[in-house]
C-alpha cells in the first residue's frame, strides 16, 4: 500500500491534536475524523486491517479531506498529512474499490481533450484551467488583455487537466498520462514560458511533473500569473493607469502557500501596483480557500463546499464593501456560487487589467 510509506506520518499524527484548529473541513463538520489526527487514526486502523479501506465511511472521510496542507505548514516537523491522504486515495483506486461517484468525476475529467488556440510561434503558453474556462472566463479575458497590451504573443491551451485533478482523486497513472499529453503539446512550439492562473495547475507543472519523470523545467519555465505579472510590472512593460481598487483582502491559495513555501509574488505584485493588502479573517494560518487543495471538491461534495464557503463568508467584516483578492479560479467560482450573499471578488489578472490604459 502507498499509505504504508507514510507510516511515520501516521504514527506522528494519530495521537496529535496540535493542528486540529487549522482543519477547514473539521471546522465546519465538527467531526473528529475530519482532523489530521482523526484521519491518521483511521489510516492507522487501515494499516492494521487493510480491508477497512473498503469501508464506505472511511472512504467518504478520505475523499472529503480538503488537502489544504495548512497542517503541514504549521507543524514544527512538517508531517505530510496531505501526502498521506493522496496515498490512501491511490490505494483505493488501485485496489479497484473506488466509489462510483469518484469514478464518474475522474472519467469525466479523463474524457476532456486538450485544445490549443493562438500562434505556434508565441513567446508563452497561457494554460487555462477548467474553472477559469467553464466558470470564471473573466480571468482569462483579463489575462488576454494584459498580454495583448504588453505586446506579448501567446498561445492558449485549455480543456484537459494537467493531471492535477486526477492525481488528487487517486488516479496516479491517468494523471501521469494527462501530464505527458500536456507536456507533449506544450513542447511542440517554441515557447519558453508556461503561465497559469490556477495554483493547482501551477503546482502540478512545477512539482508533480518531475515526479512523473517529466522535466518541463529544462525547456519551459513555469510561472503563476501573479509571478508573471510581477515581472511585467517591475520591468514597466505595462502602461498602468490609476488604481481602481485601493485595498483588498487576499485569500491565500493552498497550493501557492502550503505546497510552494515562500510564495509571495502576489504580495510583491500588490506592493508594486500600489494596492494595500489587508489581513483577512483572524489569522494567517487557516486556509480560507473553501477546498482549493481538493481541486474538484465542488464536484465531489457540493454540500460540504457550501459549508466551507459559509465559513469564509463569516470572516468577511463588511461583505458590501470589502473586496477579496482570490488567487485561485476554483475559490472564485465556489465563493460566487455558494456564498449566501454576493461577495466582491477580484483576481490579480482583473486587478491589473483594470489599470491598463486603453
Amino acid at each position, binding site marked *: 500500500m502507498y499509505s504504508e510509506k507514510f507510516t511515520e506520518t501516521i*504514527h*506522528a*499524527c*494519530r*495521537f*496529535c*491534536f*496540535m*493542528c*486540529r*484548529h*487549522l482543519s477547514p473541513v473539521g*471546522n465546519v*463538520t*465538527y*467531526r*473528529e*475524523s475530519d*482532523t489530521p*489526527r*482523526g484521519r491518521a*487514526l*483511521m489510516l*492507522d*486502523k487501515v494499516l*492494521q486491517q487493510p480491508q477497512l479501506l473498503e*469501508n464506505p*465511511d*472511511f472512504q*467518504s*472521510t478520505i475523499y472529503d479531506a480538503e488537502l489544504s496542507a495548512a497542517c503541514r505548514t504549521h*507543524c*514544527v*516537523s512538517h*508531517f505530510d498529512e496531505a501526502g498521506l491522504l493522496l496515498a490512501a486515495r491511490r490505494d483505493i483506486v488501485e485496489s479497484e474499490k473506488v466509489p462510483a461517484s469518484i469514478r464518474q468525476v475522474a472519467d469525466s475529467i479523463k474524457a476532456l481533450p486538450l485544445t490549443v488556440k493562438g500562434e505556434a510561434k508565441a513567446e508563452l503558453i497561457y494554460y487555462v484551467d477548467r474553472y477559469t474556462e467553464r466558470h470564471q472566463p473573466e480571468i482569462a479575458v483579463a489575462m488576454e488583455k494584459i498580454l495583448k497590451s504588453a505586446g506579448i504573443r501567446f498561445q492558449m491551451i485549455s480543456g484537459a487537466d494537467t493531471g492535477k485533478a486526477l492525481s488528487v482523486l487517486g488516479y496516479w497513472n491517468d494523471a501521469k498520462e494527462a501530464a505527458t499529453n500536456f507536456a507533449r503539446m506544450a513542447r511542440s512550439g517554441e515557447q519558453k514560458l508556461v503561465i497559469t492562473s490556477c495554483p493547482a495547475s501551477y503546482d502540478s507543472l512545477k512539482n508533480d511533473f518531475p515526479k512523473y519523470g517529466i522535466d518541463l523545467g529544462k525547456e519551459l519555465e513555469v510561472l503563476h500569473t501573479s509571478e508573471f505579472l510581477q515581472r511585467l510590472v517591475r520591468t514597466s512593460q505595462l502602461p498602468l493607469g490609476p488604481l481602481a481598487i485601493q485595498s483588498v483582502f487576499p485569500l491565500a491559495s493552498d497550493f501557492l502557500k502550503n505546497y510552494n513555501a515562500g510564495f509571495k509574488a502576489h504580495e510583491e505584485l500588490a506592493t508594486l501596483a500600489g494596492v494595500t493588502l489587508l489581513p483577512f479573517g*483572524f*489569522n494567517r494560518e487557516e486556509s480560507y480557500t473553501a477546498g482549493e487543495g481538493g481541486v474538484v471538491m465542488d464536484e465531489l461534495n457540493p454540500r460540504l463546499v457550501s459549508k466551507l464557503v459559509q465559513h469564509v463568508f463569516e470572516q468577511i467584516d463588511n461583505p458590501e464593501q470589502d473586496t477579496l483578492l482570490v488567487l485561485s479560479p476554483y475559490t472564485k467560482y465556489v465563493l460566487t456560487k455558494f456564498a449566501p450573499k454576493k461577495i466582491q471578488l477580484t483576481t490579480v489578472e482583473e486587478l491589473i487589467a483594470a489599470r491598463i490604459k486603453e
Partner: protein
Amino acid sequence: MSNNLTTIMESSRLAGRSYVDAMIRSELTDAVGADYVSSNAADQLGHSIDYYWIPEMWHDRGRENPKAQYIVHPGSAEEVAKVLRIANNYRIPVTPWGGGSGSQGGALPMYGGIILDTKRMNKVINIDTEALTVTVETGMNAQHMEWAVEKKGFSTMHFPASIACATIGGFLAHRGTGVLSTKYGKIEDMVMSIEVVTPEGEIINTLPVPRHASGPDLTQLYLGSEGTLGVITKVTLKIHPIPQCRKFHAFLFKDMHQAMTAGANIMRSRLRPCVIRLYDEPETARLIKRVLGLDKQGAYLVFGFDGFESVVNLEMAEAIRICQRENPEDLGEEMGQAWWDHRYKFFYPPYMFHMPQAFGTLDTVATFANIEKVYWAMKNVVNQNFPEAAFIGHYSHWYEWGCMLYARFIVENPPRDPEEATAYYNRIWDMAIRAAIANGGVINEHHGVGLKLGRLMKDLYGPAFKVLADIKKVMDPNNIMNPGKMGFRGV
C-alpha cells in the same frame, strides 16, 4: 442505564443496527438536525481515543476501544437540552466531548451511548470593551477564541500548550491552565459566569459576577465537574489589554533546590511574574537540551514579566537580584526568550513522548513547604518500584503559597500485552499519586481526574468525597452524565 435497556441496546448492537437504534437516532435527528447525528465508523473511531495513554496503547496494540453509538453535534444550549432529555428518557449515557485533548480519559464513551460533541457551539457572542470580558459558546476552539479577541486588540491571556487542541468548555470542565497563569490565573480565575444545561435538560445561568455574598459559588461547582454535572454551554471570561512588552530571563542553578528557593522567593516578594518555569536536572538535561540546545548540568529556571515597559524593567531587575542570591549561571534574556518562542515545540511529534513508550504526567500542586517533599516522594517511589522508568519534572504554575509540579514518568518498553500494560501503568499511577497525597499534594492541578484517576478520589478526599457523590446523585438522578468518571458511580 437500566439493565433492560442496556440489554436491548447491547443485543441491537450485536445484531447490527436495529429499529431501537433507528428510533433513538430519529429523535436525536429531530433535536439537532440530520447533518449532526452520526454513527459513522470513522467518527466512532475518532471519538474513541482522547489524549489518555491507555486508549492510545489499546489502539496501537490492535484492540478496539469502546465506541459511542451516536455522536451528536448540538448547535445551541436548547439543542443540548433536547439531547439530554432524550438521554434521560431512555437512560442513555452521555459523554460531553470538546476537543478530545484531555489526558485523563474524561471524554471517552466507556459505556457507549451518546457522545455530545460541543464544537458546533463555536460563536463569539460578545466582546465587552468596558468590563473587558468576552462571552463565547464553549465549543469554541481556544486558539480561535484568542484570535477573535486579539482581532479586537485584547487577549484572554489563556495560553495552554493545547490552546489549538482544546475547546474552552474542556478547559472549564478540567480547571485547565495556561502558561501565563502565574499572573493571569487558571481558567477558574478568569471566569465571570457560565451557562449550563443540567442533566435533566434545564438551562441555567450562574451569577453575572464572580465576587458576591449571595450564597455559595455555583460557577465554581461546575468548574472541574468534567461533564458529570451537566454541559457548560456559554462562558463569560475576563480579557486583558495586550501588554506593551513581555520580557524573559533565564538562569541555570546548581540544582533544583536552589532554583526552587529562588522561584519561591520571587513569589514571596509579591512581584508578579507572568510566568516562572523551573526544570529539574533530568528534564534540563533531556528536554531543554533537545529543544533549546542547552547542553549543561543543572536546573534551568526561566521567568517573565509583562505590562508597561518601565514597570517590567523594574520588576525584572528585582527578580534577577533575588535569583542571583543563589549564585546561578546567568543565561540572560536570550535563553529566556528562546524558551518562550519554543514553548509549544515540546508538544509536537517527535519531541513529545510516543509509542511504544509509556508515559504519564503526574501533575500535582502543594505549598512551598511541601512541594519538594512531594517531588522526592513521587520520584523515589517511581525509581524504587520501577527502575526502568525515567522520572523528570518541572514546576509550571506558581502561586503566592506554592507551585505546581508537572512530573513525568517515561518507560521505554512497557509490556506488549495490553492488559499487562494497563495493569503496569495503573500501578505506577497509584503509587506515585498516593505518595503525593501523603506529602500534601493532590491528585491533579490542571489536567483533571477523568477515568484515569477516579479511583484515587476517595484517597484524596476521604469522607468528603461523599459530599461530591451526593451532589452528583441529586443533580443527575438517572446517572446519564459521563458515568464512571471522577470516581462517581458507573453504569
